[in-house]
């Protein structure tokens, strides 16, 4: 029996089930949610403040007033929600000839595509984090790749608003060459660079890089470097401390090719699992959802809108290190 307008609700319920199952499956493959801080918000403009740490804790004499810890006014950034969406058209032909399988396929494909595009937009934040001040994202928008200190995400000279100290989150090797290819030596160097991070008050606040994020092209090499019992690539019988340092390898296929079709398969990143979500922010005012159908009078299609509201932002850069692998 062909679907008529009296079947709106019935078909909508069925297609919503398909949408939800498709979303569940897509979310399992959504790598970006393990790297970004994905959270719900009601704010259209989400305000981020990086205070660089307070510095009041100190020696107090008997009877002395405790020093007031003022949250040093740091750097701010505003992340403004944007809307993304599409319409899924269930044509009269599909309904008349009861092509329910095709309808389900269209809905599942659309929700799968939505989450993959969101995932790609997240990967692009990392792969575009090395130069310039803007880039074109997967949706064709010009977006910023700067942290709140006005410096590109991965830099040797991040600044603060309190003094002239700088810090780096651009990976270098032991010889000081930036953007080295994935190898054991720069992992060791980046780890030590991160551990001696000093806040503007000169207090050492170690960043522990324990997560290696690589493209699909580097999956094999990453596993060999991290999980070799000895030092990878040498006949050396020394132990391999990297195996104890790196708790997780994230293979993110979206890193292989950027949205502008640049081959970024050599890019690789290290993250502090406890802090990475302070660096990469993804507030969602609405995750992808499918709305009720509209009967389009000139085609007799039933159009189901799918939309989402979200924005990606850069917080404290120091919890993620990156390299283009060019050297």
């Amino acid at each position: 029996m062909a679907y008529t307008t009296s079947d709106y609700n019935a078909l909508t319920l069925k297609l919503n089930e398909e949408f939800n199952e498709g979303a569940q499956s897509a979310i399992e493959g959504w790598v970006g949610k393990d790297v970004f801080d994905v959270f719900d918000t009601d704010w259209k403009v989400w305000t981020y403040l990086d205070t660089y740490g307070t510095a009041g804790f100190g020696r107090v004499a008997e009877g002395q007033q405790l020093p007031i810890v003022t949250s040093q006014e740091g750097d701010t950034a505003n992340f403004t929600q944007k809307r993304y969406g599409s319409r899924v058209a269930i044509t009269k032909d599909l309904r008349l000839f009861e092509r329910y399988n095709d309808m389900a396929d269209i809905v599942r494909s659309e929700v799968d595509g939505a989450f993959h595009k969101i995932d790609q937009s997240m990967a692009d934040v990392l792969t575009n984090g090395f130069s310039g001040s803007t880039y074109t994202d997967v949706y064709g928008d010009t977006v910023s790749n700067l942290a709140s200190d006005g410096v590109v995400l991965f830099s040797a000279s991040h600044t603060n608003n309190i003094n002239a100290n700088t810090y780096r989150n651009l990976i270098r090797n032991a010889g000081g060459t930036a953007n080295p290819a994935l190898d054991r030596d720069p992992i060791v160097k980046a780890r030590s660079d991160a551990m001696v991070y000093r806040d503007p008050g000169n207090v050492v606040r170690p960043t522990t890089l324990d997560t290696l994020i690589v493209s699909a092209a580097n999956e094999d090499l990453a596993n060999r470097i991290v999980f070799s019992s000895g030092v990878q690539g040498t006949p050396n019988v020394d132990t391999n401390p990297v195996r104890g340092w790196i708790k997780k390898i994230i293979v993110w296929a979206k890193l292989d090719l950027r949205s502008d079709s640049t081959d970024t398969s050599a890019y690789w990143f290290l993250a502090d699992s406890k802090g990475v979500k302070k660096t990469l922010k993804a507030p969602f005012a609405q995750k992808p959802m499918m709305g009720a159908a509209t009967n389009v009078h000139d085609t007799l299609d039933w159009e189901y809108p799918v939309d989402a509201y979200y924005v990606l932002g850069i917080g404290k850069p120091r919890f993620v290190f990156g390299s283009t692998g060019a050297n």
Partner: protein
Amino acid sequence: MSNELDYTKLVAQGRAKAFGVPWSEAELTFLVSLGKPLEEGGRGLARSVAADYLRAGVLTLEAYDKAVADGLVPETLEEVKARLGSPQLKPKAEVAEAPVEPSEPVELGAKKGRKAK
């Protein structure tokens, strides 16, 4: 991704080139090097002072040393803004600065906006 940064602060602190214009990586590297102590190969400049030199076109340590030897004193950001003030806005600014006669006290019941005769 929409990152609206606090450029007013960043520029005032020499951490951005101009409003909405960040330093390039090369400019930032040079800015930082100017701020390093002399014993580390820098010139010990405060960041906002170093920024003035970069905006004046000094992009290497050699160029900086030559500029200093030549007695170049770069304009500060405020001086640049004042010098580049918009000519279209200037007449309006002059009108706005013209002395305004104090208004007559309004009597209750008097119509607003009319000067007392």
